[in-house]
């Protein structure tokens, strides 16, 4: 698959200084928004996005236009939320967008807000992205100054305000309902669903939440049309995706590629990652952030689209592709990832709060040579006690690394345990306090 002649999202790679307001305007910036507001009805835009087949880039891949269509008729105010919490391990494309191409995101938010008839949009941005948040605010101020935001936009009576809200550093606040709780000033924990946000979201009002990358696609779809967008990607996964590739590849980074690109090409093509560092063999590929099921070298021919990865028991997720070579231990990778989930568990539900803690304790002792023979069935039990039982997907995600590791590399666990004094309890004494 040949690389993109022109980028749709990472246009900063094609146009120097597109983060500069004037440069953005010179390249047709805000024309799509102007067309939308002055020539199209909100319903037209929703239909166009539906036709484009754009799917949410935040993880679940839900068709964006369909989601917008879920808003109950006639209920206002409505809110648009832009999810820029980007905390999924291995994912860093949102950051590049807000850093290098912020105006396209803001225009995307403006068009989308117009489409869903919202007059207020919030960008919920990961707390650590402090500098980027300031840049976004500056970009928003520029848009206000030009009358692209604020009252009576393009003289058509449409009002829109955009606010940037910084989180306080919790992965769970990327989950849409926890994000809303956090935005409302409460502790960031997911809400019970239903009701779904489209019906009752922020402050109990109909709310649409989309990822940064999703929204950044919108101006280009409106400018060039749905049919044009569908020229990229596959039938069911149209368009492009920004893959954040990290790990033991020669050239890690963000690559925007058409959906459906083979994994092998992304890793080995000179256009992309240029192969493995030190030419070691691929051992583990986590294709969609830490929540995605693991692939191995055997899976290199899978194409990177929603369907193909789901068929492999994994997922496209956020597009954070973590590539690890033989030098790593599967036990350690599982530990690291579950340590992350343990650290980020909000604590609301029992299986995630306690299960991640349990998993990490057992993995830790195996890793440090104190594993016990009964630890392998124990690990299976623990994740099975979690799987399907958690309140939200964070807990379910925590099952993924350990289940993948045990499925794909059982011998590494057995070995680690065997080395720990024939599987018997050692040094690690049990003290009763």
């Amino acid at each position, binding site marked *: 698959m040949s690389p993109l002649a022109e980028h749709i999202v990472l246009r900063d790679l094609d146009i120097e200084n597109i983060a500069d307001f004037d440069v953005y305007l010179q390249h047709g910036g805000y024309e799509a928004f102007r067309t939308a507001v002055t020539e199209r009805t909100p319903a037209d835009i929703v239909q166009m996005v539906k036709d484009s087949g754009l799917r949410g880039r935040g993880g679940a891949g839900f068709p964006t236009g369909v989601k917008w269509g879920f808003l109950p008729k006639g209920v206002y105010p409505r809110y648009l939320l832009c999810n820029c919490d980007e905390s999924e391990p291995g994912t860093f494309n949102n950051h590049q967008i807000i850093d290098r191409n912020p105006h396209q995101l803001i225009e995307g938010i403006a068009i989308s807000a117009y489409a869903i008839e919202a007059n207020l949009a919030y960008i919920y941005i990961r707390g650590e992205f402090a500098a980027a948040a300031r840049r976004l605010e500056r970009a928003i101020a520029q848009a206000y100054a030009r009358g692209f935001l604020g009252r009576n936009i393009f003289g058509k009576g449409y009002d829109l305000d955009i606010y940037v809200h910084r989180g306080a550093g919790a992965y769970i606040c990327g989950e849409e309902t926890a994000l809303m709780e956090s935005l409302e000033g409460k502790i960031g924990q997911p809400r019970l669903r239903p009701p779904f946000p489209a019906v009752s979201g922020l402050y109990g009002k109909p709310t649409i939440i989309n990822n940064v990358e999703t929204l950044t696609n919108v101006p280009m779809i409106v400018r060039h049309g749905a049919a044009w967008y569908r020229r990229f990607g596959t039938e069911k996964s149209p368009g492009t995706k920004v893959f954040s590739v990290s790990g033991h590849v020669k050239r890690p980074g963000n690559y925007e590629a058409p959906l459906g690109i083979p994994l092998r090409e992304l890793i080995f093509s000179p256009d992309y990652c240029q192969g493995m560092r030190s030419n070691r063999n691929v051992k583990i590929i986590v294709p969609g952030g830490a929540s995605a099921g693991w692939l191995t070298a055997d899976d290199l021919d899978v194409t990177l689209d929603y369907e193909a990865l789901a068929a492999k028991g994994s997922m496209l997720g956020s597009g954070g592709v973590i590539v690890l070579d033989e030098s790593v231990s599967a036990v350690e990778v599982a530990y690291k990832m579950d340590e992350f989930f343990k*650290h980020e568990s909000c604590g609301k*539900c029992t299986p995630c*709060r306690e299960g991640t803690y349990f998993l990490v304790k057992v993995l830790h002792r195996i890793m440090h040579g104190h594993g016990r023979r009964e630890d392998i069935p124990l690990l299976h039990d623990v994740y099975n006690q979690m799987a399907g039982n958690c309140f939200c997907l964070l807990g379910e995600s925590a099952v993924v690394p350990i289940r993948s590791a045990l499925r794909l590399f059982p011998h590494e666990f057995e070995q680690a345990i065997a080395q720990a004094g024939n599987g018997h309890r050692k040094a690690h004494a049990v003290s009763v306090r």
Partner: protein
Amino acid sequence: MPNVTLVIDGQTVTVPAGTNIVDAARIAGIAIPVFCYHPKLKPVGMCRMCLVEVWTPKIDPATRQAVIGEDGRPVMTLMMGKLQPGCVTSVSDGMEVRTTTDRVRFAQKGQLEFLLTSHPLDCPVCDKGGECPLQNLTMQFGPSTSRFDYADKIHFEKPIRLGDLIYLDRERCILCSRCVRFQDDIAGDPVLGFDNRGRTWEIISKSDPPFDSKFSGNTTDICPVGALTTADFRFKARVWELRPTPSICPHCPVGCNISLDMRYDRLMRVMPRENDYVNEIWICDKGRFGMRFIESPERLRQPLIRKGDTLTPATWDEAIALIAEKLIAIRTHAGAAALGGLASPDLPNEDLYLFQKLFRQVLRSPNLDFCTGAPGEPAIIDLGATLGVGKGTNLSNLGAGTSVLVVGADPEEEAPLYVLRLRGIAARGGDLTIINPYPTKLDRTPARVIRPRAGAEAFVALALLKTLIEEELIAADFVTRRVQGFDELKMRLRNHSVASLCDAAGAPEDVVRSAAYAFAKADNGIIIYGRVALASGADLIDALADLALLTGHVGRPNNGVIPLIPGANARGALDMGVHPGAGKKRGLTAREMWAAAREGRLRGMIIAGMDPVRDNPAAAEALDALEFLVVQDIFLTETAQHADVVLPTASIAGREGTLTNAERRVQRFRQARIPEFNTPAGWDVAQRIARALIALGVKPTAPDGQGDGRGASRTLAKTAATTASSDQWDYAVAGDVADEIAATVHGYADTTYESLGLTRKPQWGRQPNEAIFYDGTSYENTEGVGVQIAAEADNPKATFTLRARVPPLFATNDAYPYTLLAAPRAYDGRAWSRDSKLLPRMVTPHLILNADDATALGIAPGGLVQIASEVGCAVLPAQIDRNLPRGLALMPDVDGAPLSRVQTGPLTRIAIMAHISETVGTR
């Protein structure tokens, strides 16, 4: 609501649509284990203990019909392909729920294993042990061994204090959020919250002082583990050693059902007993922590007789003989009218009944009152006997369709449980209007708040009446049949517009109109009035009566008036006739008795359970002018120190009896096994005196004949005084007195001990023996939910006359520009608070001022203010409240408050100035 039929574990169940699976199973007698779910709280689905298999018929997307399998039955699919939390999943037709499959058992066991991984397993020293859902569910569903290394357990500092009353053990907390949700949703004191996340997620108190809520103890009941324990019960006993004694809280007119949990002869803890009609499953902290006084070492044990300046111990025989001799002497030389009796409205019916019988029939004096006669004490104007809520009223069922007016009341301070009850009504969609001259915590409930000028509350009620008339919102049919004087009322109001009345009250007209509209249109209408309404006076209360009458909101269940008259049994005091207006011959009021005593017209008194001197030092002078004073109490009160004879009595824990609550529910309490130093119950004291008098030749009269219908109530129901019969003074047990009350007191016919013992079945939301999975540790009610007695209006033939009239406006003047109002406080520091863990929360005397007034006067928070009225002055610390209306000053009615020094009546004009000589630190 339409019904839904489903199958749970093979059993077919039909329940209302919208029921969740846990409740539906409960109805079928199947207990799905839960932790975070509680039937009184909104389900949150957090703990994942209630996971079950939910199978629903497969629907063909094309035809939208159920797919039928080869066996001719609908093909079922597992909802979402995984287990579902039953507490947040609603039932649907054709659903099949399986709660005992291997998959469910694995999940249940798994969640319990998880919960136990961070649990300290210190059951042997945990107060919850023995009644702990975590223990119980672990036994039933959990693993028998732990696979989690003990050394890996997370540790927190052992209990931290969430305030004076509640300890939190974070290691034991299973993070179910029941406590937080109780505080937020039920109590309306959102003082608890969560901090941090993951395994270090923890409960914190967000208020200063910490856990500042009058309902905090309830969280320890519904906490499914021993994470929350009370300072009062911590490490006191194992729960299986306790012997629960059913009792009634003696602290306010709600009459919460409680249990005195005794170990041998010591009170270990006070727990709520479920009574849907009264307190659901809750009690307030005053009820829970305010019972330590019964075990106080200062309790009186022996009669005392005055020898010169000192009160010296005597035997009962000596004391009673002396009393009989002195009372006869006074009656002989000064007449029966020279004798008077005051009895506390906290005393049980049996005591009050015999007290008035002693006076009316044996001593033949009508001078009886349950008031203290302090200068600021409002007259008791009762609508309960006439227009009280109809028999069968149950506030816990009310919601949409109900409108409640809360007038001149601060329920949190006067009758705390009503806050929960009213919040419940609002939460279920009921309509609430609060009419009070100053803000109270009830204002936090979704409600219409009308803030009249103090003393002008009647004008709001009149504006409501005028709106009813103007907008033709009258219940015409009811008015035609049962109400007189409508035309006259219209005449009296003809020169007043809604606007002018609202203006006089200082209330917004649109809000008043909407309140009138909501109240008139509601299916059920209830009016609650309290202390400030009494202070406002008869004009207001007459208008409230007319509001209830014109809207037809009387004489039916869930309709009528609830007066919050101070005292746990003021209702009983009125019904038993401990009131000067109750008999044929009008007696002296308390206030009149003080005057009469000073003038030598009143020579002898018996004061039972009341301490008028404490709040009104001027009463001492009157008491000292008496020839003979008997005080009967459980403590040597200030009043008792002026007595010639002091008689000790049993506390509520040491005897049996009945109390009548604000909704006229007569409830029985039992005797706990507590050493009461052989002190008799109050009724027995009266009996001993009566017998001694009769033995000395006093002849009791026949019953008093018909009452004149005047007095406290507008048309006071016939009371004990009017129908009393037996002149036998032969009562062996409280039940004998209760039987006589049932036989003679108007309306009490159904209140035999037997009928008082009936429990309503099924009790709210509860299945036999499964209660612990749902409800926490409040007790089931196995000892009777009481009997509500009818109000006059319940009789369909009773008619009523409208009386509202436009009164003159209370006004301040230039010399005394502020209005002083006594504000009731639950934590008033009076005798009940002895030895209580609540002591640090007792309110000390102070004056509450508006912030701008304070600034204008140069008064800083905590600074001393001097107040002066036409009769006296006082100095006390100031507290600034920016929400208090200007021109109003509140003095909490607490122990030591110098109210009686400055008050000229319930409303007093005062001047305020900064007290310059010194300041005290901020409070």
